[in-house]
């Protein structure tokens, strides 16, 4: 155990040593960072769009009750059934009840972090509903009894051998490591499910208040299948995902795919307003929209409401040097990465309170965020609200240090003491330090301060020269 931190540090240290995962995460995140850079450079109005997107999100969250009211009214008028879930348990209960009351037994799911947040799959399984994840990455996570490690690309921690093994084992198919063949196998398997399913569950990327429209962004087509094939569609929607008008959507569409994957647009942007009209050839007969709070109203009313501006693009994860070196599982949360370091303690409380400290505040996330969330500032704000719950030694050391710095003579004394505590083997470098400096020298050397500090140099020579 170090002087300043405990179990989390050990877990993170272990994560940095998981070489196959760390290497895989490096490869994929660097590729996405580069793809994002190239595609944003081509977007002439990128900066203006980011500013506009930020302002739209801020505007909505300043008036969320009004926009929610408008959305609910419009969605209901369009034929959707709107429910409210104050927490995860309620969301699960509502959705299970919809399934039960309509005798729905086979559910297909399009990727939704919100459904992971409320652990919907477990609840549906307990209610005897078979749930099949249809996003390729989530499908592989499901059959391999794993957890997603990135909010956009769930299996960046897995290599093709692991995937091939899981598919051969769970689906009984021939072993192959070829991505095209693996994808083909998944396609055949899931196509059969799509033909037979009766319940479709999705998240929502944006909900348009003006028209009660749900906007879903996908690349594979599984999302479209999910909202087309089954007779009941359930959409789980965090209350913060509202935008005012249809004409605000393109501001976000222009930024989102570029930020996530470097594409100019994803393959499918689906706008859903109500269940099928009676004369429509296909589509669900029922649309249920479940509005999820689960702590969001607390966040909105609290000191860091900006966290709710997030549009879940994953750009901050790709940019983050911490995420790159530990991978998503190390966060022990549905939401990893920089935005996860804020959301996780806010949604799940004290046991995750240390997460905001796991950052060098380098700001790569802020630069990448399409809606300009100042993540480092919010991390510092959360840190400032938790100072009394930091490890006692750290509080004493930091306050002691600050006290010492408050007088020049104490500062100079501190300098002299530090020089003494660093062992000197004559090389000018210390390899072992005391106290917190031991945590430094565990990993790196420290230059031993020279004979004179700058102020001594000034007082003795430099000050008098002209």
């Amino acid at each position: 155990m170090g002087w300043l931190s405990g179990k989390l540090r050990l877990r993170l240290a272990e994560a940095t040593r998981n070489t196959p995962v760390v290497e895989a995460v490096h490869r994929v995140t660097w590729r996405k960072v580069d793809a994002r850079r190239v595609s944003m450079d081509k977007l002439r109005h990128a900066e203006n769009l980011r500013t506009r997107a930020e302002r739209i999100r801020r505007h909505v969250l300043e008036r969320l009750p009004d926009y929610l009211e408008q959305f609910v009214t419009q969605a209901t008028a369009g034929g959707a059934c709107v429910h409210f879930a104050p927490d995860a348990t309620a969301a699960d209960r509502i959705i299970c009840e919809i399934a039960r009351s309509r005798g729905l037994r086979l559910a297909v799911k399009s990727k939704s972090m919100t459904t992971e947040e409320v652990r919907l799959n477990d609840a549906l399984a307990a209610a005897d509903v078979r749930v099949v994840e249809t996003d390729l990455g989530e499908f592989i996570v499901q059959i391999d009894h794993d957890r997603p490690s990135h909010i956009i690309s769930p299996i960046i921690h897995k290599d093709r051998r692991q995937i091939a093994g899981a598919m051969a084992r769970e689906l009984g198919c021939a072993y192959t490591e070829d991505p095209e063949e693996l994808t083909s196998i998944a396609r055949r398997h899931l196509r059969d499910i799509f033909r037979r399913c009766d319940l479709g569950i999705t998240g929502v990327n944006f909900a348009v208040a003006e028209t009660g429209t749900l906007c879903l962004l996908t690349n594979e087509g599984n999302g479209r299948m999910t909202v087309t094939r089954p007779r009941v569609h359930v959409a789980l929607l965090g209350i913060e995902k509202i935008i005012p008008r249809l004409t605000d959507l393109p501001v976000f569409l222009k930024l989102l795919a570029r930020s996530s994957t470097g594409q100019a647009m994803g393959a499918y942007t689906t706008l859903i307003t109500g269940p099928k009209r009676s004369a429509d050839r296909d589509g669900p007969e029922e649309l249920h929209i479940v509005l999820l709070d689960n702590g969001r109203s607390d966040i909105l009313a609290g000191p860091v409401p900006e966290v709710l501006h997030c549009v879940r693009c994953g750009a901050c994860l790709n940019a983050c040097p911490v995420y790159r070196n530990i991978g998503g599982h190390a966060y022990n949360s549905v939401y990893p990465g920089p935005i996860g370091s804020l959301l996780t303690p806010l949604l799940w409380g004290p046991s995750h309170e240390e997460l905001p400290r796991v950052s060098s505040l380098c700001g790569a996330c802020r630069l990448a965020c399409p809606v300009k969330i100042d993540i480092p500032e919010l991390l510092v704000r959360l840190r400032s609200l938790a100072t009394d719950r930091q490890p006692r030694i750290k509080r004493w050391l930091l306050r002691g240090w600050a006290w010492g710095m408050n007088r020049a003579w104490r500062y100079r004394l501190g300098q002299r003491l530090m020089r003494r505590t660093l062992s000197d083997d004559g090389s000018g470098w210390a390899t072992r330090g005391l106290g917190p400096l031991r945590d430094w020298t565990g990993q790196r050397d420290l230059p031993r301060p020279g004979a004179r500090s700058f102020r001594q140099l000034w007082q003795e020579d430099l000050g008098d020269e002209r």
Partner: protein
Amino acid sequence: MQVALFITCLTDTFYPRVGEAMVRVLRHFGCQVEFPAGQTCCGQPAFNSGFHREAARLISRMADVFSPYSCVVTPSASCATMVKHHGPPLFPEGDQARPAVCALADKTWEFTTFLRDRLGVDMAAHLRFDEPITFHYPCHAREIYSVEDLQGWLAGANGCDLRVPARPDLCCGFGGVFAVEYPELSDAMLRDKLSELEATGADLVISNEAACTLQMSGGAHRRGLRLRFKHLAECLAESLGLMEPESWAG
């Protein structure tokens, strides 16, 4: 003109040569340099850790120490950012320390941008290098100067063989208290940074941030790498013949 030097605690303790170089360069370009002895620290480590009351006390003290001066110059962009951007919001309207803290924010300059913008110095014209160089862009310099700025000062220098790293602004992993709270993670980030720098083939790294230099040079030395680190102030002072080139003691 008169400038007061805000040396920063890390530069004062570990890199006095950088301070010396700054003084010589500023004098060379016609400044009269003062050094208020009462200065200690801008409070950035406390601020970043969330100990804002303690940080505010330190900033307020700095504002008092520097109140007799109309122009303050510091070698660290992160300390300049602390003073200019994070200091004033700690003091609400009506707080009696606020005017002095705001005044400090207005009159504090980071060294390289001071030379360029207040003294009109063409940095590239005065710099000379006689070996390949690369550079590290400190994350906390974003409010002060850009990657392109830094690259431009170096690329135009005499004799320059500038090897641009693939990602010049990749975080070195220091992050203040972070480096000792999560040292293994900090070191993993450092490993990425050092590989980037090594891949350029240059041994000399221009690094204008004492904290980053501590982290990178400490890691390089532990690993037996040939990388050496210098502040632009030192390079300028040497190029101008104001200081002897430092030999690397290893």
